[in-house]
């Protein structure tokens, strides 16, 4: 890459289940204004705009065309990106790549979802093959329930361990002014919440949220002029994995991740660790903001990201390793299980990680210094985006 890249401004809306007071464009506009204010820039300083959301979650298409007034893309270069759950991270990566290429100095990235306008379940079922498994598809709830069952059978994990992590997420959300669900949960509250599909209870699943996020990204020379606290984007990677359509006799499908072979989570994490000399994440990374649409995913993915050893995820939950005050904090913001405006969710991970690196997260700021933060995103059942943010180059 020709240029190093930094995040110089971040913004997000307050997250709610309904926002009848704004249309989609006005929602995006709130996040854009917040990010520009944070960077102390105006639209004149922006060279390109990348935006997107998830397909089939709202009833209108070509959102990039609808949105141009509100996101400030009028007569500016840019593109729309839509990659399911990873959308917000892919948009961010596109903005990083734009700035790193030398083509654009300052790039605005915008992501949103207005889930009060569509039906999340129908949107997610439409992901499945209409000529194969759509007829009985349930969506993400079933996928994560299946992971949870498989993980419990294989590891000795009990439901209590998921409940511990859900309470941890809620503690974070209660300290995060932007979070959607702030419930002051106890373990009992969680374990008494409505069963959807064993072992998936309502509270282990992310809510349907309305919200937007935005980033201002700049090349090194610009970034140093714009802010005293640039957050350096050390690396980013996107990885796809195998579909569930390949069957090897004798090899049991890894139902906890779906499909055979190495997962996109494992490959993405290993790639980014190797390229950046990370041999022990718990030592080399100060905080992680991961994309966990369900608490069951969080438990299992500690292992797939290589944070801990295989089979150790639930023991981490028991020991509180990933609490805000723990040895390896994960999602001090409250995470996806508290706030999930899908198209924007993966960008919120990057926004929150950047705030931690800057020391600007407020009540949910980590007390010890954050030099390096790791973020992830997950789409469908088959792909991962990971980023590494850093205080220094």
């Amino acid at each position, binding site marked *: 890459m020709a240029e190093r890249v930094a995040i110089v401004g971040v913004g997000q809306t307050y997250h709610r289940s309904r926002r009848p*007071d704004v*249309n989609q464009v*006005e929602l995006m506009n709130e996040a854009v204004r917040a990010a520009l204010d944070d960077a102390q820039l105006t639209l004149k300083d922006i060279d390109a705009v990348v935006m997107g959301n998830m397909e089939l979650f709202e009833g209108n298409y070509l959102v990039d065309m609808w949105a141009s*007034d509100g996101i400030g893309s*009028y007569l500016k270069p840019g593109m729309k990106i839509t990659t399911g759950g990873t959308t917000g991270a892919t948009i961010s990566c596109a903005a990083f790549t734009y700035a790193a290429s030398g083509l654009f100095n300052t790039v605005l990235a915008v992501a949103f979802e207005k889930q009060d306008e569509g*039906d999340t379940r129908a949107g997610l079922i439409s992901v499945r093959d209409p000529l194969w498994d759509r007829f009985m598809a349930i969506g993400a709830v079933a996928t994560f329930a299946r992971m949870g069952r498989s993980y419990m059978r294989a590891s000795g994990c009990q439901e209590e361990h998921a409940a511990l992590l859900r309470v941890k997420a809620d503690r974070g959300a209660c300290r995060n002014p932007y979070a959607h669900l702030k419930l002051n949960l106890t373990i009992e509250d969680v374990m008494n919440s409505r069963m959807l599909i064993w072992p998936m209870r309502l509270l282990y699943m992310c809510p349907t949220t309305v919200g937007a996020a935005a980033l201002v990204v700049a090349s090194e020379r610009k970034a140093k002029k714009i802010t005293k606290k640039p957050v350096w984007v050390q690396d980013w990677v996107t990885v796809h994995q195998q579909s569930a359509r390949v069957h090897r006799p004798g090899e049991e499908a890894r139902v906890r991740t779906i499909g055979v072979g190495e997962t996109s989570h494992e490959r993405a994490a290993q790639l980014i660790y190797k390229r950046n000399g990370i041999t022990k994440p718990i030592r080399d990374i100060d905080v992680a903001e991961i994309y966990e649409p369900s608490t069951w995913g969080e438990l299992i993915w500690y292992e797939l990201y290589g944070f801990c050893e295989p089979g150790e995820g639930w023991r981490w939950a028991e020991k509180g390793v990933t609490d805000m005050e723990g040895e390896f904090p994960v999602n001090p913001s409250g995470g996806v299980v508290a706030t999930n405006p899908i198209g924007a969710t993966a960008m919120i991970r990057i926004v929150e990680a950047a705030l931690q690196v800057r020391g600007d997260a407020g009540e949910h700021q980590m007390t010890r210094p954050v030099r390096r933060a790791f973020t992830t995103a997950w789409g469908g059942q088959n792909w991962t985006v990971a980023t590494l943010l850093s205080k220094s180059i």
Partner: protein
Amino acid sequence: MRQEPFVVPGKLVVPYRYFVGRLASKALIALRDDKKVMGVRCPTCNLTYMPPRSTCGRCFSKLEELVEVGDKGTVLTYTVVYHKEPVHPMEPPFVYGLIKLDGADTALPHFIGEVEPEKVSIGMKVQAVFKDKREGNILDIKYFKPQ
């Protein structure tokens, strides 16, 4: 062992909804309740947008000043639809027009009615015909007819 292509008919059916937001709600409620056609003014660019929007795409100002643009305007351009399609809102032939209302600087797409399609012309002065039972959307204007 090739065979004929296997094609399966299917469909996507989802009941979506669209929130128009605070500014457009105010404008459409004025249309519904008082038959007032509202635009929004950008004081920086000195332009009045119809339909209203809450950010000026040119200067990125926040727009809040709703102004009445009136129910009379000029046909900027038009097209006559002669063929029948399930998605068409009425039986052909009918006329789509871009109408610049007298108080606005932008054009509103709508129907032109009560006139033979052959007699519609660019520059023609038209006036809104309102529905009796209005619901708070732009079709509360049935169509525009010659003044």
